[in-house]
């Protein structure tokens, strides 16, 4: 059986500058997979290409064996890949509720209200402020809303780009706990993080990306123990 997501020899260029060079990785259903690496390594570019906002220069992206890299972004969301982008990118002049409704934009079933309640149960602060404009929220609250919004499409694959960026340690812990909970509920997660320690501790599988290439891969706990990873990304030397 094909893995949920398979990225094969992906290269992405901005004009003449190659941001991603020949990256390959797979995400099996039910797993948390992390892409870690320093700033500018090409992680965000990789996610933006999977979700169809960018086009690969070469390589393939397969969702359950079907190529999706030529499809427009809205069709890829429709195929079950949700992307919570870097910097959260909420619709600041819309309310919490409207942001969540947009997350469920493609859904035609009648479970939207129930799932919205699920997000409010997970993050009570969002429920209390459901009629407030998203632009007025703190970084942590915005991140909760960004994750909730991405969950509203009921994705098979949830891609989270830097969910802990700019958050306090307590808020970061809450976000990572939520990611773990989502996995337990059966969501497959592709996580991009600069907080390598927290990401690796959580990941079934992880890939280290450096200057646009995959340099190391393995189960999260193995990479966490790898001296090269510790030297480069965990601030030890």
């Amino acid at each position: 059986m094909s893995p949920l997501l398979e990225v094969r020899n992906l290269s992405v260029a901005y004009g003449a500058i190659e941001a991603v060079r020949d990256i390959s990785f797979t995400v099996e259903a039910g797993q948390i997979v992390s892409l870690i690496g320093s700033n500018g390594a090409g992680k965000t570019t990789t996610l933006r290409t999977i979700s169809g906002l960018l086009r690969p220069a070469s390589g393939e992206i397969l969702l359950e064996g079907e190529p999706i890299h030529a499809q427009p972004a809205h069709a890829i969301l429709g195929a079950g890949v949700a992307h919570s982008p870097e910097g959260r990118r909420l619709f600041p002049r819309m309310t919490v509720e409207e942001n969540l409704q947009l997350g469920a934009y493609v859904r035609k079933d009648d479970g939207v209200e129930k799932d919205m309640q699920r997000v409010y149960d997970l993050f009570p602060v969002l429920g209390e402020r459901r009629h407030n404009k998203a632009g007025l929220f703190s970084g942590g609250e915005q991140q909760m809303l960004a994750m909730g919004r991405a969950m509203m499409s009921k994705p098979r694959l949830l891609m989270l780009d830097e969910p802990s960026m700019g958050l306090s340690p307590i808020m970061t812990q809450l976000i990572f706990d939520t990611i773990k909970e989502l996995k337990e509920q059966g969501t497959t997660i592709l996580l991009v993080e600069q907080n390598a320690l927290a990401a690796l501790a959580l990941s079934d599988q992880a890939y280290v990306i450096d200057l646009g290439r995959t340099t190391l891969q393995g189960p999260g706990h193995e990479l966490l123990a790898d001296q090269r990873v510790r030297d480069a990304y965990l601030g030890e030397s």
Partner: protein
Amino acid sequence: MSILLQQLANGVVQGGLIALIALGYTMVYGIIQLINFAHGEIFMVGAYGSLATYTWLLPQGIKDSWVLSLPLMLLGGVVVAVVIALIMERFAYRPLRNAPRLAPLITALGISVALQEAVRTFYPDATSALRFPRVFAEGNLALGPISVPWSGVLIIVVSIVLSVLLQVYINRSRMGRAMRATAQDPDTAKLMGVNPDRVIVLTFVLGAALAGVAGLLYGSYITNVNIDMGFQTGIFAFTAAVLGGVGSIRGAVIGAFIIGLVKTIGGQYMPGGTQYDYVWIFVVLILVLVFRPQGLFGEPERVRA
């Protein structure tokens, strides 16, 4: 005093007409940041579409009753305006979606000229102004010293009702949410599953339909149409949209009423008379933009991360 009140009333009528057109400018700009200079011509072809429906499609029995001919002419005008707008979006603007902003802008000016010349060439006798039937109650509404033709009252009522309906649609409906999302952050809207082409087409359709309605109302009020009407009224509508804050529905409507009032009051009281009414409109525009570059209700230009 009675002259002032009369000119205020005339200004509100003109403002309503300008508002219906300004909405199309402001919506298209909000979604694709294009000043669609051909939008005035959509209003013009809408008026000719209504007139053509009257001239060639309606039997005499229906022509004699405005109650029957008004809705049919409205339908004809709106269909023509929407079809032309759809062709324009599909074949002129869509291929330039990722081109530098100047390219679609110049294209819009080109379409504007092309539509005027097409009507001049192909519409019988369109080289001069054509008579347009008054497809509404004859006579005037008299309120003390003020007297407004019923066709002018119709403009005020229709423009306000349609503006409110549009605002409600954009604020409450699923497609309205998709439009606002696309206007605020097009990439993230795509990540929500919003198909940008559908949103853009809907935006052009709504704008063109309102312009088509305005075309009929204009014809019925002024009782003649000419191929320059889109350019003239389009300039006012574009100015109204900028004045109100381009991208803002409420701004376009309020801007339009301000322009209508400045035009009639300026034409009445300022030196130069109606020949100079354009001047006062642009003076007001310049003053507003000097002190509030984003317009009255516009969002300041935002910088994206």
